[in-house]
């Protein structure tokens, strides 16, 4: 029982840590973008290719980053997390 409680506590801590890191990452990326929009307008207006400004590219990349962070979380949750939850459930009376 104590062993199970420890496993659950460890799992809860790991989930919380990952959730916080990923949330912080999303905030840094999004607010970084917003601060660039506020303070580096000429830089974001620079054209990398005809029609493609740095701002448009970074904007699209924020959306791609949101997908990527979700992908990281789902990979961890569908793998390690769900396996541990399944073991915990199976070991209960």
């Amino acid at each position, binding site marked *: 029982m104590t062993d199970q409680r420890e496993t*659950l*506590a460890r*799992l*809860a801590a790991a*989930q*919380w840590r*990952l*959730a*916080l890191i*990923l*949330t912080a990452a*999303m*905030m840094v990326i*999004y*607010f970084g*973008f*917003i*601060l660039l*929009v*506020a*303070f580096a*307008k*000429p830089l*974001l*207006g620079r*054209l990398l*290719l*005809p*029609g*493609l*400004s740095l*701002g*448009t590219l970074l*904007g*699209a990349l*924020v*959306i*791609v980053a*949101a*997908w990527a*962070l*979700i*992908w990281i*979380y*789902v990979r961890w*949750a*569908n793998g390690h997390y*769900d396996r541990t*939850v399944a073991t*915990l*459930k199976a070991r*209960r009376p």
Partner: protein
Amino acid sequence: MSTSLGEPNLVAILFFLLFVAVTLGITWWAARRTHSTEHFYAAGRSVTGLQNGLALAGDYMSAASFLGIAGLVSLSGFDGLIYSIGFLVGWPIVMFLIAEPLRNLGRYTFADVVAYRMRQAPVRIAAAVGTLAVVAFYLIAQMVGAGNLIRLLFGLSYETAVLLVGLVMLAYVLFGGMIATTWVQVVKAVLLLGGALMLALLVLARFRGNPLSLFAAAAERYGTQVLAPGQLVSDPWDALSLGLALMFGTAGLPHILMRFYTVPDARTARTSVSYATAFIGFFYLLTFVLGFGAMVVVGPDAIKAVDKGGNMAAPLLAEAVGGTGFLGFIAAVAFATILAVVAGLTLSGAAALSHDLWVNVVRGARASQREQLRVARIATVLLGALSILLGIAFKGQNVAYMVGLAFAIAASANFPALVLSVFWRRFTTRGAQASMLVGTLSALALIYLSPTIQVSILGRESALFPLRNPGLVTIPLAFLVGIATSLQAPERDAFERFAEVEQRLHLGPELAPEDAAAG
């Protein structure tokens, strides 16, 4: 450019009637399956991950995101894209902090989760205040938007349009509950994504399939500054505050949160957020093409001639690249978009009134299924009538700020209490209550004192509070008040029952025999 917009469009009317006929058919089918609150609020918890992902997208993507953002980009270029991005970044937060705990800890409303280990009445009353405030402002924005849009699209009078939206939505929710609402949202999401994709492809066909050629054409005609940040974000504090509200507001919108109860388990809740984020992100990427497409193909002057706010950019673009028939289709999609969002909002408001206030506060969680279902339906009718009245009362008012306000209240009233109740052992009843009430009231007060109301609406010279959106102040404030109040007077019961919360949060409700007590 001449347009047939605003004249009765046969294709639009046919598509609209077809949509209403199909969705009412679904409602009739759903009504025969709605026998209990489990069906009415949570669609029998049988929705799949893909279905719920589409329904979440349908619940979230309002007419404002489709017509508003396309219009904003068509008039001001890059600046409009900032909104596209802001509306997406809340979804990872929903995934990391909210979706799975909600599914495992609650039954019908987010208050179930906050109140889980607390004293029921104070928490549920405070949660209902926050929920109803969000729902009311969001509904007003949608109804006024509906009235204006449908007048422009179909040539109906404003009042007729509001009444029509209210009555059809009421039919969905009243008879078909969450099952009908889910399917209306799924159908709408498919139509909206399909319509936007078709429109984007028709535009890109004129630019050799290359979005960069389209952007380059826009820069060539209107100057490269349309691809660079302009005046929209002039004050970084303002931008930060709006960004915070959008990011954490998504994770506190009651109609979005409620959707996580419709899936069978936490893993499906997780899958549904992945699908929703994929669809919504894809849609917002399409708005880049739609907005610049309208700028180049239709032109800002022609767009402004029809509607100063630019809301008709996407329909005008549809007419320009696809003819009157395609305009009719896009107009019908815009109508369907509004119906699906107001149905979700009304259902979540009805759940707060009946499940939180009536069943759990007034009746002390002792009400029969029959009574619960009856009260839920009475609450639905009340909210439906209220939304029609509010829609008509706010005719001609500038309500654009109300969506921002709804996000600010959701982010300050609901999100902090939800996160603290799930992840912080020392959180107490008083803390939850204080956090939710202070979050709601401070957001309301600061919006009233902000330039949004004082300068733009009341026409004063200056405002007492400098920020247009209060999120930067009210979200940290709600967290601080919740934490300080809890630390000041510890609550033993809530502290000790956290172990149960933690267990149920990860292992799911089926292993917790105390399940019945939570309802």
